């Protein structure tokens, strides 16, 4: 009997079995090839095209459309952008020659390298105004390609995806609220399987196994799953499905999952979840008017004109001090209700994942705003780029096209934020119930207050007038 049958759950539709969609989803190289072609266009236009952000495909597509579509597909489907990741094509090509056998260093396993790089990307984005520089944006794309190839050329498995790639870590966290999941169709079939091809690969089918080390029968949720569907291609029993599920439910689930382990034991996963959530607020803070007054005040107080230093302090406040106070306080209060005496960090690790849906709501509101208000802006830029390349096939550029009006998009932002908050409140309740079955409310309330405080700060942020400036230390 499968788990689904045991709890009366419909196993759900198998998207891989759908006539056209199934075969398209399994053609990963096709999607990667398309994304590689797009990446090449962006890189070339970023380096050689006009160095004006709104007129260049590199800045426009990366910072407006890619980010918006990324979060939209994560919310509406799953980790589709990892599935179609173009960085994997040159990486796989390099691997044909290097054939790495060395394992990724134990000290670097887990999410800490990815978290550090994620913060680094957020920091450089603000410091160097990557959003305003086509050249720099193209350089970042090239560096992603180079880093993926360099890391995976030297080490076996997929350490770049699992531990290094900042985009990948973002996608892993956000995909915990995705409605799709890759899982075994029938656990009975897995129980009788001796080859474990989903993990080890299938030479007959020339299919590799899961490179992030997820053994399908023991996989729990979407964490570390790139939706590459290598497991589906490798399974000799065709027992792998891409199916629907309840978004966010895995955040309540503390079973030990293959390749991930038990969430409540993974401090690095909790760190990633927290940086994801607080980073969402920080990234949104960077584009509203009060940030400049705050930074100027900070610069005056510190007696410095160094943007790097002021930005570093701001990052320290939002990513270290604020979480330490809020989460430390909540953990101190809620641990009184827990049956076992636990350290503050241990309590934080257990509850941290409850804040992820709220973080997803903030990212979705922010990136959704840019995507929806600038939805069609790529059209004239693509027309101009084609004309400049001697291919005026797309007609005369229609400058002036935009997207939805801000007034229409802002309620959508609030709706996404509200939805994330509601899911966070419910997930936190479920965690509190698991951790403190007898005094659930007492364990829950401090965390609910933290979630509501973060939500209130996000509402305030989204209600501020937008102001996107490159420098803040000048009048």
């Amino acid at each position, binding site marked *: 009997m499968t788990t689904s049958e045991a709890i009366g759950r419909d196993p759900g539709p198998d998207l891989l079995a759908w006539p056209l969609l199934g075969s398209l989803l399994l053609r990963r190289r096709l999607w990667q090839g398309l994304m590689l072609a797009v990446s090449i266009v962006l890189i070339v236009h970023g380096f050689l095209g006009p160095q004006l952000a709104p007129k260049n495909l590199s800045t426009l597509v990366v910072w407006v459309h890619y980010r918006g579509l990324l979060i939209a597909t994560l919310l509406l489907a799953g980790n589709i952008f990892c599935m179609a990741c173009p960085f994997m094509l040159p990486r796989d090509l390099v691997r044909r020659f290097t054939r790495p056998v060395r394992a990724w260093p134990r000290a670097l396993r887990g999410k800490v390298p990815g978290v550090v790089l994620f913060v680094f990307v957020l920091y450089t984005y603000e410091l160097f105004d990557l959003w305003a520089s086509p050249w720099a944006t193209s350089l970042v794309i090239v560096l992603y390609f180079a880093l993926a190839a360099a890391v995976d050329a030297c080490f076996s498995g997929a350490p770049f995806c699992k531990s290094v790639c900042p985009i990948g870590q973002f996608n892993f966290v956000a995909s915990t609220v995705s409605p799709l999941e890759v899982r075994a169709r029938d656990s009975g079939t897995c129980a009788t399987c001796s080859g474990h091809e989903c993990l080890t690969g299938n030479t007959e089918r020339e299919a590799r196994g899961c490179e992030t080390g997820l053994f399908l029968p023991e996989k729990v949720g979407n964490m570390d799953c790139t939706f590459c569907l290598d497991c589906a291609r490798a399974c000799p029993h065709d027992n792998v499905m891409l199916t629907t599920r309840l978004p966010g439910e895995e955040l309540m689930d503390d079973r030990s999952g293959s390749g991930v382990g038990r969430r409540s034991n993974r401090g690095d996963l909790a760190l990633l979840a927290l940086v994801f959530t607080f980073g969402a607020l920080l990234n949104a803070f960077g*584009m509203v008017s009060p940030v400049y007054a705050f930074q100027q005040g900070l610069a005056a107080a510190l007696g410095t004109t160094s943007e790097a230093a002021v930005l570093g302090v701001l990052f320290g406040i939002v990513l270290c001090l604020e979480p330490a106070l809020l989460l430390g306080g909540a953990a101190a209060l809620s641990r009184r209700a827990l049956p076992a005496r636990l350290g503050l960090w241990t309590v934080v690790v257990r509850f941290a994942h409850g804040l992820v849906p709220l973080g997803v709501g903030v990212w979705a509101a922010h990136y959704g705003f840019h995507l929806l208000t600038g939805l069609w802006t790529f059209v004239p830029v693509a027309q101009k780029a084609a004309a400049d390349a001697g291919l005026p096939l797309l007609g005369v550029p229609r400058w002036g096209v*935009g997207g939805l009006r801000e007034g229409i998009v802002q309620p959508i932002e609030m709706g996404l934020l509200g939805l994330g908050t509601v899911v966070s409140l419910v997930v936190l309740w479920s965690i509190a119930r698991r951790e403190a079955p007898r005094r659930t409310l007492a364990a829950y309330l401090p965390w609910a207050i933290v979630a509501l405080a973060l939500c209130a700060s996000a509402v305030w942020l989204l209600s501020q007038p937008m102001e996107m400036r490159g420098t803040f230390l000048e009048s």
Partner: protein
Amino acid sequence: MLLFASCALGLVWLSSCAPEVNGSDGLSVVFHLDPDVPRVGPTTLEVRLYDGAGQPVRGGTLVVEGNMSHAGMRPSFADLVESAEQPGLYRGELEFTMGGDWFLLLEARWPDGRLVERQLDVPGVRAP
């Protein structure tokens, strides 16, 4: 990490570049915004064109496209009309729709058909 660090160094170099208002063709453009400290909302833009001899250029056709430095924002457009009282002075109204850094792309067509393009930076437009 080394790769990202080299990226950072590259960006430091990049950020030191700045555009010029006056081009190598000897033509110069002087512009003025009203209000002086630009704010979100309609703004009067005055442009004076001078030829290589420093004489005002009359009878030109000027179009301005305002963009934010962040991609994905709808641009604003303005046609500048030459003042009847002050030849060589072109005036129009442009709408800054959002606070932040803007740049204006000025396209000036000379009476003899020559086309001159300039980029005018307007940093720090204040939010309402």
